[in-house]
């Protein structure tokens, strides 16, 4: 074992290089997408770029730190992190502490920075699931013994998140849990049963919030209401279409000029598509794909079951977020408030995703 030779020992370049490239591309696109907004709103066109760079740098530092920490250490953190996440998620509901953005309180204000507890919750769930599933081993095939405890923990988290409300994150966690169970050895009928139980709950949430219902309709046929709920997805389409094969060139996006809402966060990929074209999008998708495939490879060749599950869980979580965000901006899934890891603006997501990748790198270096 080449544990503590140096920081770079056994660095998995198949993960590290695409991640760094994605970060760089992300910063460039973020600047392009946000400068006008930042200049108009905050009087400083570099505002978002500066902050995102800060997140990036601290994220990379944390990533390298996480890589050098032996993964067994994380199993000890599991319950502590789970507890902190739970507390933070509950704190969101205390009026005055939760930071509300357009009707949803998803952020906590800590000093000058705002923090998104659901990001931490996802991460701690990944740690917990890997830990718990590795411990149970072949018991995962039994419902009460294997699946139920995990379901209760995850269900609590999902329940809290859905009440923020943040349906997107909840659905992602749900899907991810299902995949985890599948890999962990759950029977197919058990998974189907879980789906049957949870789908009506999600459906209920959709049906009982008018905006979600409208988003759903906008997804089915965005051109019905181009000025209302279809507006965002249509302008995303327009950004993709305007970009064409080669793109309009960096900085030349038109949709970022207030046409496309959330251009620097959830819909940043559309701006990338407009400016860099199909070529640029292909590059981005390939790099994400590389990271994810490599992450799965790491989990397959991990030294033990825990590290294997941990690598798989982090990779799957990362991959699901990427895939769903992309599907959303291209109109393949209804709009949810989900950001694109490593590229969208946002400190919590950036830092936590990079820590996750750091852990992945750590496991990879200890194969």
């Amino acid at each position, binding site marked *: 074992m080449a544990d503590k030779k140096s920081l770079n020992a056994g660095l998995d370049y198949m993960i590290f290089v695409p991640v760094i490239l994605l970060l760089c591309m992300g910063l460039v696109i973020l600047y392009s997408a946000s400068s*006008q907004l930042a200049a108009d709103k905050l009087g400083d066109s570099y505002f978002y770029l500066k902050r995102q760079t800060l997140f990036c740098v601290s994220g990379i530092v944390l990533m390298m730190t996480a890589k050098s920490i032996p993964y067994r250490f994380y199993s000890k953190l599991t319950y502590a992190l789970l507890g902190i996440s739970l507390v933070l998620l509950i704190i969101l509901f205390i009026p005055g502490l939760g930071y509300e953005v357009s009707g949803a309180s998803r952020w906590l204000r800590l000093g000058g920075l705002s923090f998104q507890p659901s990001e931490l919750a996802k991460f701690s769930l990944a740690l917990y699931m890997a830990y718990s599933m590795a411990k149970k*081993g072949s018991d995962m095939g039994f419902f009460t013994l294997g699946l139920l405890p995990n379901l209760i923990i995850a269900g609590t988290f999902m329940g809290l998140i859905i009440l923020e409300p943040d349906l997107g994150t909840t659905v992602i966690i749900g899907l991810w849990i299902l*995949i985890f169970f*599948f*890999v*962990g*050895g759950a029977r197919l009928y058990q998974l189907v049963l879980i789906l049957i139980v949870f789908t009506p709950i999600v459906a209920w949430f959709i049906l009982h919030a008018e905006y979600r219902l409208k988003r759903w309709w906008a997804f089915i046929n965005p051109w019905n209401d181009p000025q209302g709920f279809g507006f965002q997805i249509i*302008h995303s*389409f*327009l*950004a*993709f*279409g*305007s*970009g*064409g*094969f080669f793109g309009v060139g960096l900085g030349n996006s*038109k*949709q970022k*000029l*207030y*046409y496309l809402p959330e251009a620097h966060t959830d819909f940043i990929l559309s701006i990338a*598509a407009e400016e860099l*074209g*199909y070529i640029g*999008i*292909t590059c981005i*998708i390939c790099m*994400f*794909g590389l990271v*994810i*495939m490599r992450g*799965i490879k790491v*989990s*397959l*060749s*991990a*030294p*033990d*079951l825990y590290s*294997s599950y941990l690598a*798989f869980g982090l990779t*799957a979580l990362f*991959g699901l977020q990427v*895939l769903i965000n*992309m*599907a959303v901006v*291209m*109109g*393949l899934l209804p709009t949810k408030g989900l950001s694109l890891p490593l590229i969208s603006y946002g400190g919590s997501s950036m830092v936590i995703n990079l820590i996750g990748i750091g852990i992945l790198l750590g496991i990879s270096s200890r194969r």
Partner: protein
Amino acid sequence: MKIKEKKWIRFRIYLVAVFFLLGFLTVLARSFQLQVLEKNRLKTFARSSYEGIIKLPPKRGTIYDRKGHELAISIEVGSVYSHPKRVKNKVKTSSRLSQILKEKKSRILKLLKSKSSFVWIKRKIDPDRARKIKALGLDGIGVITEVRRCYPGREIAAHLIGFVGSENQGLEGLEKKYDNFLSGPQYSLIHMLDAKRRPFSISRPIPSGNGKMHDLILTIDKDIQYKAQQALRLAVKKTRARAGHCIVVNPDTGEILAMAVVPEFNPNIFFRYKPYQWRNRTVTDCFEPGSTIKAFLLAASLEKGVVNPNTRFDCEQGKYKIGTKTVRDTHKHGIMSVSEIIMHSSNIGAIKIGQKLGYGTFYNYLQQFGFGKKTGINLMSERKGFIRPPKDAKKIEQATLFFGQGMTTTSLQLVMAMAAIANGGKLMRPYVVKAVVDESGRVVKETGPEMVRRVISRRTAGRVANILEKVVSNEGTGAKACISGFRAAGKTGTSQKVDPKTRRYSRSKYVASFAGFVPVDRPRLVILAVIDEPRGITYGGIVAGPVFSDVGSWCLNYLRVDPQLRLVEKGVNQGETERSNIQKTVVCRPAPRVKGGALPDFRGLGMRDVLKRGRSLGLTVLLKGTGLAYKQDPRPGSSIKKTTMVKVCFRPPT
């Protein structure tokens, strides 16, 4: 325990990997669909939301006269626009702009406060002020070079050329009729707007559409046009008339050399005039030609052979009953020859000739001469006039047509018909646009002389011309139309206007006209002068004749046509008021007047002697023909006191 040992876990992980791979492939395919397959549709749609188009008026071709003088040109000027949402200090900006533009501050401020993303502050200002505004460098204020139409000749041929609107679109006259040719490619500015409708970029003018710009070359001669307008203006002013038109035509080709309408207007500021003042009355207005039509009665009768110039008719001492109505002449005449009837313009004589010719035949001939039908000149809203068809005409109406009452004509029809007599019997198609030339100078469309039809034989035309020449003689009604040094011919006309209230012929409103050509043996010019509602004396010969004479003599000199009669002085035969204006052009002034005595007999003398003796008596001598004197006017022995001018005719000794 390593995961490697659990085959089913590995298998399930592989399945998840495949799931991700498929996911990414789906996303890639979707991206391909959006970015490559549906690119054009989406792009067009996207563009429509962020691009705003401001159309700029197109450039226009130049309109030249036949000699290459510019009648209408395009000049580059500056236009000031604003993106109101980008103007930060609206009050300050408006006050600075108002200083330069000399516009009310409040008006500019109102524009700057408008909600639209683009407004014109002031268009088409001179380049100097535009430069000043540019130099200010105000936020949200810009200057674009635009093209403005300019008519350097101001009133010259304004009615013919017309004018353009603020978008440089032809509104009247040739500018409208030839808009397709004159108008160049449309230019537009594309300005891009963000979703808050604030502009973030404005393009240079981009040509849109593939319109080509052409120049027009007219048949008009700017100098002749100027002269015609000036003479007409003078006549209209002197007679305090309502309006007047004058057309000068080259009889051989049908080219219009001048087309003047009074009152005039300045097309550069057309909006300060009333729409009726823009009308090119020479083609849009009809009037009753009156006695002028007798020229064509004569032509038709001679052509048909129903009369010859010496055929005599009883002119009934100025009163002639047709049914219950009585036709009167202004002077009482007894028995007169056809030439005398024309010379004195006897209505009763005309009826007698006409009765011999027959209404139907005359009607046909008038149609042959082009009356009652559009001439086909390429001008806006040409009218066709009216002749009553034989089957509709009552007896009295038939009779009055022979002296031009009860039909209407445009000036253009009348002048073209007269041209047909002048050029030996051919009705030509009138035209004002000689050629349409593209930007490289290539002729795209050319108009040449076109004969519509032969109306009368060359011989008849010559005979008619000889009789019409007598109209311009001293005994004729058109004496004031004579042009010294040249043999001119023509016909006067004075017609009563129909009072729209009473629907009867007015006793006070007349149209006075003179249509003639010069020189008689080889006509170079046909000139028509029409004076609408002159006051005081209303006779065509007296009111419109001088216009013919003035324009004719000037043009002949301008065109360097050699005078046929040498050693001729221009007669001071105009009225007292005119003398001050016209006398300046007289070459030789008569010697001081001798008072008293009788006029000597010049008959049998040579030209030189006649001149010498005449001038020694202080008389203006008008010479006609060559050889020895055989006739003089006034007669020998008449009092010299009342005489200022003697007209002496010569013929070669036999």
